């Protein structure tokens, strides 16, 4: 029972140096959290699936594009993905080459080679050789004759290949659904991540200041937040959309005005609770300033609640963007967006592939995020961590 005797009894594995997550050295606490996260199999796998999908979607131009990734023309190696070449180069007259144009396609094919992405449509590419009036059915529901019926040489045409298939059909403007889904997924997730990131920064700062100082500052800020949260977001967006041209950043800015308030509550509560903890007082007695106190001693407490909250804010932001797009007040026309796809599905009930595909992508994305969120929550649950 001697005081120093128990020092030696801490096994070596318990020490700080031993813990790693992948290549990173972590604290024992974070290591236990990582194990907790891993223990939730559903969330752990959702995390990896989501990461694969997300990182994959960042390379969307290499997966679905209307121009070759790399090509050789008259001995010269060109990379149309990174650089726009005028059509003059290949004997045409447009300022930017349309590589899908049969004339250009034949010209380049006979003077070199092209490596195409697996899907030869970008999100805005209109399939000009649609087998049937838009929205066209998925290509695998048609015979090869039908799919290639509009090409110059029919089934024997060089363009008649799987790359030009519309795997999930087209929308009502003849654009490839699969390409639009890939780009739509990318833009939704990026929008959600940026919005969540900015909201977290603003929300945590505001919550920290309010919780730490309390008093009048807190009182006034809380009323201000109450006013903000009671403004209906969609109505305001509709009004603003009629004044400002909606775009990615403007939408982000407007939604940011509303979404940061979600973080304030949790962070403020944590700061309120922790600001009179003994170790905070102990640091204050050492002469530690307010900034350091908040950052080093209080913030780590609040981060647990915030991180737990984050995946749900992320899925919330994505849902908000989708609903705005659905109503037509979202991203500018032509942008690949899941909400717009849902709207098209509503307008074209005879083309179920639109609704089905939009549903699958949106629900998969949100389900993965919620599963990840649950696993994060489990990992940070102090009862599980310390139990």
């Amino acid at each position: 029972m001697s005081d120093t005797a128990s020092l030696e009894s801490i096994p070596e594995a318990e020490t700080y140096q031993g813990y790693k997550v992948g290549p990173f050295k972590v604290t024992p606490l974070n290591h236990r959290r990582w194990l907790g996260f891993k223990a939730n199999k559903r969330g752990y796998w959702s995390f990896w699936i989501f990461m694969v999908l997300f990182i994959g979607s960042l390379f969307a131009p290499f997966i679905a594009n209307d121009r070759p990734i790399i090509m050789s023309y008259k001995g010269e190696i060109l990379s149309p993905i990174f650089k726009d070449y005028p059509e003059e180069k290949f004997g045409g007259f447009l300022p930017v080459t349309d590589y899908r144009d049969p004339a250009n396609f034949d010209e380049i094919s006979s003077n070199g080679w092209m490596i195409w992405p697996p899907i030869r449509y970008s999100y805005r590419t209109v399939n000009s050789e649609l087998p049937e009036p838009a929205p066209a059915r998925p290509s695998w529901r048609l015979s090869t004759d039908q799919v290639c019926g509009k090409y110059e040489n029919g089934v024997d045409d060089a363009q008649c290949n799987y790359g030009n298939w519309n795997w999930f059909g087209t929308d009502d403007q003849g654009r490839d659904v699969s390409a639009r889904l890939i780009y739509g997924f990318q833009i939704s997730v990026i929008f959600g991540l940026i919005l969540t990131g900015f909201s977290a920064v603003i929300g945590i700062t505001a919550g920290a200041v309010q919780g730490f100082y309390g008093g009048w500052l807190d009182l006034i800020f809380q009323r201000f937040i109450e006013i903000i949260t009671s403004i209906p977001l969609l109505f305001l967006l509709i009004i603003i959309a009629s004044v400002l041209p909606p775009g990615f950043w403007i939408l982000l800015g407007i939604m940011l005005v509303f979404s940061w308030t979600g973080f304030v509550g949790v962070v403020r509560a944590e700061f309120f609770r922790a600001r009179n903890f003994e170790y905070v007082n102990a640091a204050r007695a050492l002469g530690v300033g307010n900034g350091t106190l908040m950052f080093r001693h209080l913030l780590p407490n609040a981060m647990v609640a915030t991180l737990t909250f984050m995946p749900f804010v992320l899925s919330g932001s994505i849902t908000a963007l989708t609903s705005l797009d659905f109503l037509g007040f979202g991203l500018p026309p032509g942008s690949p967006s899941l909400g717009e796809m849902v709207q098209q599905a509503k307008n074209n009930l005879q083309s179920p592939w639109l609704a089905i595909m939009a549903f699958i992508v949106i629900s998969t994305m949100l389900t993965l995020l919620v599963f990840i969120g649950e696993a994060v929550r489990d990992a940070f649950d102090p009862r599980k961590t310390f139990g």
Partner: protein
Amino acid sequence: MSEPILSVEDLQVAFTTSGKTTTAVHGISFHINKGETVALVGESGSGKSVSALSILKLLPYPAASHPSGKIMFKGKDLLSADAAELRKVRGSDVTMIFQEPMTSLNPLHTIEKQIGEILELHQGMGEKDRKIRTIELLNQVGIRDPEKRLGSYPHQMSGGQRQRVMIAMSLANEPELLIADEPTTALDVTVQAQILELLNKLKARRGLSMLFITHDLGIVRKFADRVCVMTNGEIVEHGPTKEIFDNPQHEYTKHLLAAEPNGDPPASDDKAELIMEAKDMKVWFPVKAGFLRKTVDHIKAVDGIDLTLRAGQTLGVVGESGSGKTTLGLALTRMISSEGKIGFIGRDIGDYSFKQMKPLRSEMQIVFQDPYGSLSPRMSVAEIIAEGMRIHMRQLSNAEVDDTVCGVLQEVGLEPSTRHRYPHEFSGGQRQRMAIARAMVLEPKFVMLDEPTSALDMSVQVQVVELLRRLQEERNLAYLFISHDLKVVRAMANEVIVMRLGKVVEQGQATQIFDAPQTDYTKALMAAAFNLETASSGIVSQ
């Protein structure tokens, strides 16, 4: 000898967390006869509470389990009893009172409702009978004017009164066995003496058997008929109280009995350097009322206190909870604002702002009560100790800071190689050493010690007291030692202030105050602390 009312045979308790099973109690056996008080003594982590909770199966099952054992209560095995049978036993044949009277009562119900509920559940009493019986019970546990207190909520009562209500609740159904799990640990010494006396009286009147769980040997000596000494989940020694105290056999029992703070405080020296002086110090918290929040009254937490403190000396501040001891300490260190003059190493810091205080912070340090709360759980030991140095000793390089941290850890008796670990990996005593190291590393002249030993086990307390005294001698430190534990104060302080309700009751040389207290209040405090005796009513709080 009569048949034992409760006998525990070879009880094991195991806890399973994430696949790992740890055994907390390794097969203990004891029994309680009718009308007998058996004490289960041990330090924290010895498994005494867990054993007591198993009797009523109040552990978090299925995480907890009993690989073996029998708990026979009046010929029935409680461990194998089903939920319905247990419910009948709980709260009527066997009842329990817990350590924390603040949290064991429902804050949203009145006293009448809480006691009445038990009467209704177990005896099916009607409303009128319930009221009569509740008043009778409150009378028995010594609550004055029970008719008036019926409508009170727990927060309107003091800790001692709440514990009395808890006892009333546990007696409501005339139990045969009362399990008391550290029932007085959270209470002041004076209130503790009152509660113990009450339990003793009730026991004698009703022939109640009692299982008393405590870490305080003083209580055991006075109240228990038999003692079981527990450590590491085993009963290492048991027998009649007198025998155990007079002639302990086991090493651990001897160790426990020897763990009384002893040694002498530093000698008073009027010529030593004056470190701190306060004149007519006041901390008043305004009470605001009405629409315009006008200040209508003040809570006088500290009301006109004078003190002087010289280098190498210790000033002890004692008093019941709520007497303003800690507020006084915080005001002296300028953690809260106060009125009156505070002189500190030749400066009047009474109206210094936080910024002005910053350079002085390295000269005055605080060691807090709870070593679990005062160390940030997210910083390593080295970071915690170095934090103050990064502010006050900016000129030091990283290597020098690290050297200093190692040095101070060694000085407080910790292994320097453990400095990269986190506080949760250490025991309470080790943590308190870290908190002391954090204060000492800045080489202060004055250290405020706010109940630095209260959260620690007895044997660890002794070590911490010795450490503090050694550091004081080596560094010629001035201590302000705040504590409700008079035994520790006697071993630490050469001068003592006795506080009550923000005012000084008695002030002077420690030897004089301890040996020949002048006021009734101080006398009552001493009697309660050293002999567990109660004072006549009116002198101390209820």
